[in-house]
């Protein structure tokens, strides 16, 4: 009895297997019969149309799924198309993410560590450790000059007239050294003038190229001078820019409407605070801003900040003395240059808030944030509230030093599909996620 059942089971299984085989043979014969269409069966321009509508997060997932999608989504042409859509279509604004940058230094080396930070409204936690970059035998100075989408521009001062600039793409684990922008100071008469350098990155949607602008300020005994150059990613050298406004560029710059905007000081009057760089024409221009209703005793340099809020340019006034408020003007209409005072937040009631100056503000999903002494302050612009969250100390990943002092800062970044390997020889990582730069 049992044997009969056993045999009949085998028979029915075999029969099923046979049917399955025949079915699959039949399927192969009749292409359009019963087979389900897959995305890769669609005409390529339709597939690209679909992919272009997706946010970066979805595209990242797709890159991992199959070779076909990797080839489409990972190509530089697609990245440029997608970037262009990100910056020129109002429907495609990416949600800003947070990057925690911890800077370590001892007397010999210094290093930066990049980790993603998540804020859920009540607490902060670090998620992925993206990169550790160690500057060997160089404790001197480096600065994060800009963040453009997910690219961090880091300048490193080697000596008075020599500087290196690196592009770091933490999401893809890429570090690229840019060609040097060494240029002798104008009116160089044998001694080195004091120099300030600023870099800014943007995307020229007409030629579909990424560009970086470099501004050098020279201070002589009785005068000052300024020069600028622009570099198109993938080319060999920097090109000089003829006309540069003579003023002092701060390190506060943001990217909006296809141009990069700096907060500057020393313009023709107190009312000229924003200089912008147009990446299509490779030209500087002044951006008009509203009357910021601040007395001349205020320090524009320290109290005012440039931001982007959901793709729009904004100016923030952080006043902690004598009154305590935050005011934010937003550029509502780019073509007509119309600003509106969108937010006035009274800080009297806030228990925890940052004090003093030297704050850098950035944008998070629902508002703005800053960091001071290991505490991150999030302002939720929907409710006009502020919350201070203590950050846990960054964990030191490598034993090049003991528990030396480190500094934490937070940057806002958004996703993009760009891959730096298409623009030059990447610096090889010593091991995944870790670079040693000489």
């Amino acid at each position, binding site marked *: 009895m049992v044997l009969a059942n056993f045999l009949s089971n085998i028979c029915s299984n075999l029969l099923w297997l046979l049917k399955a085989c025949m079915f699959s043979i039949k399927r192969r014969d009749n292409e359009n019969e019963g087979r389900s269409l897959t995305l890769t069966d669609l005409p390529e321009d339709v597939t690209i149309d679909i992919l272009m509508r997706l946010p970066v997060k979805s595209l990242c997932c*797709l890159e991992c*799924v199959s070779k076909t999608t990797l080839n489409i989504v990972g190509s530089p042409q697609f990245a440029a198309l997608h970037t262009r859509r990100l910056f020129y279509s109002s429907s495609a604004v990416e949600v800003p993410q947070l990057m925690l940058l911890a800077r370590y230094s001892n007397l010999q080396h210094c290093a930066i560590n990049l980790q993603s930070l998540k804020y859920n409204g009540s607490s902060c936690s670090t998620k992925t450790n993206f990169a550790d970059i160690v500057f060997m035998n160089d404790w001197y100075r480096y600065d994060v000059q800009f963040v453009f989408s997910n690219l961090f521009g880091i300048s490193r001062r080697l000596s008075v007239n020599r500087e290196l600039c690196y592009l770091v793409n933490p999401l*893809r684990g890429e570090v690229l050294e840019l060609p040097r922008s060494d240029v002798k100071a104008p009116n160089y008469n044998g001694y080195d003038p004091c120099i300030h350098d600023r870099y800014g990155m943007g995307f020229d949607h007409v030629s579909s190229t990424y560009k970086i602008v470099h501004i050098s300020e020279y201070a002589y005994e009785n005068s000052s001078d300024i020069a600028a150059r622009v570099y198109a990613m993938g080319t060999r050298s920097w090109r000089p820019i003829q006309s540069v406004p003579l003023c002092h560029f701060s390190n506060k710059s943001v990217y909006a409407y296809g141009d990069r905007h700096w907060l500057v000081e020393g313009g023709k009057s107190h009312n000229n605070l924003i200089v912008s760089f147009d990446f299509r024409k490779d030209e500087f221009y002044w951006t008009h801003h509203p009357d910021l209703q601040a007395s001349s005793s205020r320090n524009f340099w320290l109290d005012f900040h440039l931001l982007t809020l959901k793709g729009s340019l904004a100016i923030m006034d952080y006043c902690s003395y004598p009154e305590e408020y935050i005011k934010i003007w937003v550029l509502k209409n780019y073509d007509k240059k119309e600003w509106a005072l969108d937010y006035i937040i009274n800080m009297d009631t806030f228990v925890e808030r940052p004090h003093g100056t030297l704050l850098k503000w950035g944008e998070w999903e629902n508002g703005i944030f800053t960091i001071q002494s290991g505490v991150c302050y999030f302002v939720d612009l929907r409710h006009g509230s502020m919350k201070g969250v203590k950050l846990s100390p960054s964990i030191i990943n490598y034993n090049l030093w003991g528990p030396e002092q480190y500094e934490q800062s937070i940057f806002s970044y958004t996703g993009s599909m760009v891959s730096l390997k298409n623009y030059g020889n990447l610096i090889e990582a010593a091991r995944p996620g870790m670079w040693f730069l000489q």
Partner: protein
Amino acid sequence: MSRVFKLKSSDNETFEVEEAAALLSETIKSSSSTEITVPNVKAEILGKVVEWCNKHAESEDTKDQLIKEWDAEFVSVDQHVLFKLITAADYLQIKELVDQLTQRVGDMIKAKTLKTVEMTYPTFNVEREVQEELKSLGF
């Protein structure tokens, strides 16, 4: 006096379409004859495309709320029907229909990738379950 076009599916079924609806297709517009065979598209799918064209030909204002709701219902079909519709609409070059269908596919992909927490690249691993879900879309 509007012309009547005849669209023939790959399984030899013929659909009669009024001029206004038929001319929504660039392919038909630039064709010299009023009888067009649509290769590789079966009657079931061609029928739906004709239905869409008829609906859009009769409505004056495409921004009408009712039409939008009808469109939303129209694209809420099974994945494999969706892809077949796209292929047909693409062949017939009906731009607005292709737009609506591709937007729908994009939304489906977005929904499947909602679960990922981080923007990760090939260097890191995307969550297993998200990969599986995407594979079901036929990547």
